[in-house]
């Protein structure tokens, strides 16, 4: 306000004041008097006005950013559902596989037992030490073994196909997880944008902080073992650590 430097009131201001009063513009006249009395105040008001407008615009822009709204109300709940699907389908696959394997165990054990049963007589036969009765009995046992093995290998084959087919979850869960990763990336970008809008440098916050842990330091599986030095790599590390403690 250069006029303030020269004196309290300029000729121009006085003329405007007279004009406002003559044309019945009392409010404008009052404002002018206030400005003449305290020019810095009006500068301050102008600055506050500008900031208010900016804040208003920013808030409006936030509301306009419907993507952010979609992320919170649609995409994130959808991602939760997708991850639950991963839990369910991997659990199903594990159970299907174990169903098949658990039915194979007794079948294999049965064959192994029959082989064990014929084995002594078979050894005698191979060594030419078998008598006729033993030989007849061995023939019967071998016959049973062949029938059982023939039947059960078909059974095992079909169960192994079940194990094979139970692995089809990997393709589906892989796609689902990839989608969730994309979403996480988008949310990350939005958060960084928001931080930037509020004048917080995103780079500053990129300092690697240790992961959150629960009670008793519980963290769950560590996926970046090579980047950590507070973690054991494998069972050998565990055993070494325990033996160093006198275990």
């Amino acid at each position: 306000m250069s006029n303030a430097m020269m004196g309290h009131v300029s000729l121009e201001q006085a003329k405007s004041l007279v004009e406002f009063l003559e044309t019945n513009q009392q409010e404008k006249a009052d404002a002018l008097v206030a400005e003449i009395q305290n020019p810095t105040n009006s500068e301050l008001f102008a600055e506050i006005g500008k900031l208010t407008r900016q804040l208003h615009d920013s808030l409006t822009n936030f509301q306009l950013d419907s993507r952010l709204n979609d992320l919170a109300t649609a995409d994130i709940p959808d991602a939760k559902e997708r991850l639950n699907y991963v839990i369910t389908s991997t659990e199903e696959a594990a159970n299907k596989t174990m169903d098949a394997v658990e039915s194979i165990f007794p079948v294999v054990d049965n064959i192994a037992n029959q082989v064990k049963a014929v084995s002594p007589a078979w050894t005698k036969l191979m060594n030419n030490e078998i008598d006729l009765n033993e030989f007849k009995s061995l023939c019967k046992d071998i016959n049973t073994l062949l029938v059982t093995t023939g039947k059960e290998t078909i059974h095992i084959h079909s169960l192994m196909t079940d194990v094979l087919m139970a692995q089809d979850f990997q393709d589906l869960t892989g796609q689902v997880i990839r989608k969730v990763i994309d979403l996480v990336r988008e949310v990350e970008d939005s958060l960084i944008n928001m931080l930037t809008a509020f004048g917080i440098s995103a780079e500053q916050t990129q300092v690697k902080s240790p992961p959150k842990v629960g009670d008793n330091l519980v963290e769950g599986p560590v996926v970046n073992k090579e980047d950590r030095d507070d973690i054991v790599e494998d069972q050998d590390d565990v055993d070494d650590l325990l033996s160093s403690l006198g275990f």
Partner: protein
Amino acid sequence: MKVLVVDDFSTMRRIVKNLLRDLGFTNIQEADDGSTALPMLQGGDFDFVVTDWNMPGMQGIDLLKAIRADASLSHIPVLLITAEAKKEQIVMAAQAGVNGYIVKPFTAATLKTKLDKIFERLG
């Protein structure tokens, strides 16, 4: 020998049960966290506990501590099978009196070795 397998994931309980059965343990019961396991232990004559660490409700490490603090249970050997792999946690488990510590993912051979070692020590 009566064994209690404690894990919140039924698939992991099933895996451990199958492996134990293969090693000759046939009397196996299950619990899905420490707070279910503890009354079962107090009510039954269990000889051995295999437990996960990270479970909702009572964690495996707290179950271990509770077992060691209970005079009628403190003699029961406890094997932890867990994805928790911080050195500090392994030390914590050792101090709490764990008999064996297996990190997931693990193999049938590892389980056998640890079991042999635990029962060899107990004599």
